[in-house]
């Protein structure tokens, strides 16, 4: 039974992915590169949130420090292109490995902290990295790094006139990270992570080395985050510290995941699919008025969702699903809720 249900779920995902892949061919999106831009951002931020979800959702360690890893990935690609004038690929590779290594080094002492102490420690780490990078001339300091005009294409991971290339890259990134998490969900390591989240002592008593699990989860999460950072900078063709390595950016990881439904596979996608269009289109509509109306609404909406449904979008959808199901079963005359 278990096997069959899994197949069904995966088949659905597969259909969904094929649809996403065909999306650029639909004229309504392809004709207009702003919608394409929004689609790319949804995929990117869903990937970022999913990467955070590994440590924050599945493993239960709420990190506000992910913009550090995001920034390292971004600077890796940025410096490879701007400082060393090459292709971004070696920089991406170094950035990803460096992010994982740094994640292990800084997380090890932090994991001794609990609750809010841990959260605020990760704030502090972001601020330290942010301010250090701002005065560090080797990485461009406060001036930032601006991409030169180079040849378009996959070699340089850069496209100018169309966004289709970026879209497919974002899709691959999305698939990679969702695939990893999907695999983790069924894998032994995924169970370890959830065991650590539910209770560290209990997990330890069952023979799970909780520190090792958390460190491994953090390293994986950081590496995938760095990958997203590299894509972000390739997409924006500029990197500076406030853009990538700020508390604002860190909050986005947490916000999207939690609003979508943390610790679930679809949560990050849901969060990004709601939050990113909201942010982009409301800015397009009202940003030009200059009163910050878009941000006022954004703030209110966050409060509303979080307060009404702390489980996130996925909770809302479950509620709706339950109601629909109830009506259906009421019509049929038996109760679906009663069965285990």
């Amino acid at each position: 039974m278990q096997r069959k249900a899994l197949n069904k779920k995966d088949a659905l995902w597969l259909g969904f992915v094929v649809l996403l892949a065909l999306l650029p061919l639909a004229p309504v999106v392809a004709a207009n590169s702003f919608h394409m831009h929004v689609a790319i951002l949804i995929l990117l931020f869903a990937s970022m949130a999913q990467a955070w979800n590994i440590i924050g959702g599945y493993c239960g360690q709420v990190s506000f420090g992910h913009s550090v890893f995001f920034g390292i990935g971004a600077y890796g690609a940025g410096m490879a292109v701007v400082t060393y004038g090459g292709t971004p690929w070696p920089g991406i590779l170094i950035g990803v490995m460096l992010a994982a290594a740094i994640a292990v080094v800084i997380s090890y002492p932090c994991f001794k902290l609990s609750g809010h102490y841990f959260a605020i420690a990760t704030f502090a780490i972001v601020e330290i990295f942010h301010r250090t990078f701002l005065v560090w001339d080797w990485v461009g300091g406060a001036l930032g790094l601006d991409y030169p005009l180079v040849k378009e294409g996959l070699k340089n991971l850069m496209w100018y006139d169309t966004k289709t290339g970026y879209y497919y890259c974002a899709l691959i990134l999305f698939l990679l990270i969702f695939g990893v998490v999907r695999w983790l969900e069924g894998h032994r390591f995924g169970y370890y992570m959830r065991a650590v989240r539910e209770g560290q002592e209990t997990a330890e008593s069952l023979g799970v080395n909780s520190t090792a699990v958390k460190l491994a989860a953090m390293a994986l999460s950081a590496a995938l985050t760095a990958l997203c950072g590299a894509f972000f900078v390739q997409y924006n063709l500029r990197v500076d510290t406030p853009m990538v390595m700020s508390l604002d950016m860190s909050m986005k990881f947490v916000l999207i995941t939690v609003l979508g439904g943390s610790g679930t596979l679809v949560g990050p996608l849901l969060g990004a699919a709601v939050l990113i269009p909201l942010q982009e289109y409301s800015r397009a509509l009202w940003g030009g008025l200059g009163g910050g109306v878009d941000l006022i609404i954004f703030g209110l909406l966050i409060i509303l969702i979080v307060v009404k449904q702390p489980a996130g979008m996925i909770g809302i959808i479950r509620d709706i699903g339950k109601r629909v199901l109830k009506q259906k079963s009421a019509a049929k005359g038996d109760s679906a809720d009663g069965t285990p």
Partner: protein
Amino acid sequence: METFVQVLLDGMLNGMVYALVAAGLCIIWGVMDVINFAHGEYLMVAMYVSYWLGFLLNVDPLLSVIAAGIFIFILGAMTYQLIIRYTIGKPGLVALLATFGLAIFLKNACMNRFSPNFLILTDTWLSDKTLHMGNLIFPVPQLVAGLLSLVVVGMIYALINTTRFGWAIQATAMDRDAAELMGINTDRIYLVVFGIGGACVGIAGGIMPSYLAVHPEVGSMFGLIAFVCVAMGGFGSIPGAFIAGILVGSVEALAGFYIAPVFKYIAVFGLYLTVVFLRPKGIFGW
């Protein structure tokens, strides 16, 4: 040596203001285990209250502290009633994100209403006054703010430790259900605690316009520093937050002067990490 004392003095005075801002956050955290992300924005709103009282009615910030304190008390109580109440008992992240949304809302609503221009009150009782002792310069506004901080934090400490109401707060903080069984209306306790937390930062914000410009972004950095102070001091410990505030102010000033100004916040956050790595529950935590 003289410079050292001067730098340290400036730092400590600033630190006392941090302590007052942090004290409000600390009591909320201690009783309800909620991080109020909109704390810096409360400060900003309080500064606007004080500024407009001064600008429109010519009330000196020194008097406006009372109005600002009351205003933010109400704002805090409203925050609890409308938002926080629904997040109690849910994962800690929920309240944090809700107040993060509130912070975005308050910041942009103030920008929308009062424009992003920065506003300064001139010719207040305290502004630009200094006391000289030998070669040492005491800036009067910061000095008064520091003393105010000492008084307010002392009062809150006394309230919590010597009054029946304070004991009720402590009981609620320790075990909400047990307190409820003892006949304490914990919902009301939470409401008042959130209000008091707001009032602390309201008082701090009330006095600040006598030396600092008011604008929608002014609270962000104070809020962040307050988080650090509270966590450094230890879970819900008001003396801890106070000492941490002064420590943060001093380290900021000394690092800024003796290393380089851009390193001052790096030093502050580094100090926090060092403290919690050595004592994972903060200086006064257990």
